[in-house]
């Protein structure tokens, strides 16, 4: 199957990736090839097969809902490109110009 240029652009937008026209064209071709290969799965009738979501047997364990010490704020902020007053700093979210 072949992805359209619009589809590839839409995927890049969903994935928050700013890509050049050349990258979009290359990925369109490569992803279409990969999807062709993936279509092989349609050879199999899986109507009565239950999906395998995890490689661990049994249900996910629950733990007690207790407060525990976490890593200190300064340590968690040490890699932030921008931080202020113990918080990550980002450009304004509200009133952002529509793109």
């Amino acid at each position, binding site marked *: 199957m072949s*992805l359209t240029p619009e*589809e*590839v652009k839409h*995927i*890049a937008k*969903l*994935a*928050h*990736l*700013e*890509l050049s026209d050349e*990258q979009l064209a*290359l*990925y369109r071709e*490569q*992803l279409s*090839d*990969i*999807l062709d*290969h*993936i*279509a*092989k*799965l*349609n050879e*199999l009738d*899986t109507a009565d*097969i*239950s*999906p*395998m*979501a*995890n*490689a*661990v*047997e*049994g249900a*996910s*364990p629950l*733990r007690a809902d207790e407060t525990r010490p976490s*890593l200190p704020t300064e*340590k*968690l902020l*040490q*890699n*932030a*490109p*921008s931080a202020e007053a113990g918080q*990550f700093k*980002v*450009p*304004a*979210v509200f009133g*952002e*110009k529509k*793109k």
Partner: protein
Amino acid sequence: MKLLNDLKDGKITSRAATEACLAREEALDSSLHSFLHVDRSAPERAGSVDNSSKPLAGLPIAVKDVLMVEGMPATCGSKILEGFMPPFTATAVQKLIDAGAIVIGKTNTDEFAMGSSTENSAYGVTHNPWNLKRVPGGSSGGSAAAVAAGLVPAALGTDTGGSIRQPASFCGVSGIKPTYGRVSRYGLAAYGSSLDSVGVLGRSVDDIVPIFEQMIGKDPLDATTVDPPAGRGDRPVAPTLNGTKIGVPAEYFVKGMQAEVEGRVREAIGMLEKLGAQIIPINLPHTEYALPVYYILAPAEASANLARYDGIRYTPRESDASLQDVYRQTRGKRFGAEVERRIMLGTYALSAGYYDAYYGKAQKVRTLIRRDFEEAFGVVDAIAAPIAPTTAFEIGSHGDDPLSMYLEDIFTLPANLAGVPGLALPVGFDGDQMPIGMQLMGARFSEEKLFAIGRAYQGVTDWHEMKPIL
């Protein structure tokens, strides 16, 4: 492990052993590029654990750069984590440090462990110690090359679709991809969370086992870790292999694979038979579907896991114009092509209208692949098979064709999808003196059984003792 025994017997100090690793790294790694970071102060740390009674007291090791070690940068082979200093240490690494091991540095990897050659590292390719023009395999190529070249006695790796076993095979070393859930993933930069396994590479099974034993176990910080159910995981086979049943799956000997790979693997299986094992032809009928299943599930999980690299928390940031620009430009400029491709593929597979056709379908076929293994392990103790269809290929030879690179993984993906362990063993060389590996796969929690078979094999062969001339 000989070095561990020498350390215990006081024949060598930990400081001297660590200094020797650093000296060898300094002499050889400019041509190999197996390390991304080396801690030159490691010998000082080593000095303080001499004469300790801890199980790994003073043992120098290296860690793949997708695992966090506090005090050392963690790049995951990506420009998006350039300069990142992790505020904590991965559980698997911490357990080894607690047992006395000395982490000397971080090894090269394909970006976020996505690749089969280390060519996808944003910090440059690692070269195969057996031939510098060839790749070391990947994504744990730095760890495999470092062990093969004797820079470290052992190194941690991770295996999501073959990333321990395939580089072990390409570099002629041994490596264990454990049962999914047996080793904590806490502190591992997540790629495909339902597939990721943390394991270890070393020259021989004897070198791997003492480290593996310290890494395993339930971790409250990783809810998918489990201890073996009672009565499982504690049935090692006798050294003679008498009564051990080893399955050989027809689907792993395919048209187009390098004849020498098939030849050496069949010889190794013949050796297991000589040691007393019963060889049983088996079928794993859904093997050919592992590649399409993997390339839906792993990218889907990756697209969610890598959403966290957004230019806000992990340094660095491109653009400050708007929040959308922070996300889009940081990710667009800092991720490499293979990572972008897999994020796009996964985003597409999970997007509205396509979920059932791709993700849902792949999860169902994953069930069929797991059942193949369950049925096989109802009959045999272990499965012996090739690891890769070829020996190490030349750097750059796959060009810009991602699908041809994915096909390198066809024999390793099924174990990850089924969550079963795989042990890589060197079993010979091709005509170009490039190493060939074989994998032993077992039922969940059967690592000890695989180790026993591997030890029996390495007791009568010397492929694991071969060293490249550097």
